[in-house]
């Protein structure tokens, strides 16, 4: 699934969700920085992670609660630089979500694709 446009590939994994806003933004910061360094970057949202991508969540929470930028700002900063966002179906089911509940552009993969991405990454960083 890596496009191969960059020599360096980093896969971030986000397991925390909307009930823990303080853990919501850092993967997006780091992914945006990596993309700015011309790395190819993906973030895989599993366990509670997919709840961060809900259309009705990204404008309501941010890493500092009511202060500062909403999560949408950090998401769009990353995606505008080419960062791809991935979820898996069991994690959608865990959180009673469907792909339609999430912001546009999220891709669904499964365990085999995740492991293939991980095995072919230069780094896998999990939060």
């Amino acid at each position, binding site marked *: 699934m890596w496009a191969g446009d960059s020599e360096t590939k980093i896969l971030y994994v986000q397991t925390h969700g909307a009930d823990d806003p303080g853990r919501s933004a850092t993967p997006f910061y780091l992914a945006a920085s990596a993309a*700015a360094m*011309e790395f190819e970057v993906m973030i895989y949202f599993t366990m509670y992670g997919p709840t961060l991508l809900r259309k009705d969540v990204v404008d309501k929470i941010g890493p500092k609660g009511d202060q500062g930028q909403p999560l949408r700002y950090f998401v769009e900063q990353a995606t505008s*630089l080419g960062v791809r966002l991935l979820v898996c179906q069991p994690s959608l089911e865990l959180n009673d979500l469907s792909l339609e509940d999430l912001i546009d552009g999220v891709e669904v993969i499964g365990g085999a694709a995740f492991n293939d991405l991980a095995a072919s990454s230069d780094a896998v960083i999990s939060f």
Partner: protein
Amino acid sequence: MSEPSAPAADQVLDCTGLACPLPVVKTAQAIKNLVPGQVLELLATDPGVEPDMRAWSSRTGNDLLGITKQDDVFRILIRRVN
């Protein structure tokens, strides 16, 4: 790092007051608007900007010409290479 005659910048990018990762992100976007050989001058107050821009330049292959600091403001000159 200092150099006797710093080249004049072709474009100035003011990131003072902006926190990580914005100086890196905006530099990456701004450098694409220059042609190879032109120089970007980044102004930033993020205290981590020096190691960040060294890493960014090293990874992207652009030339970091110099970093100076006056008061809280870092002035970073980068020449676009490719």
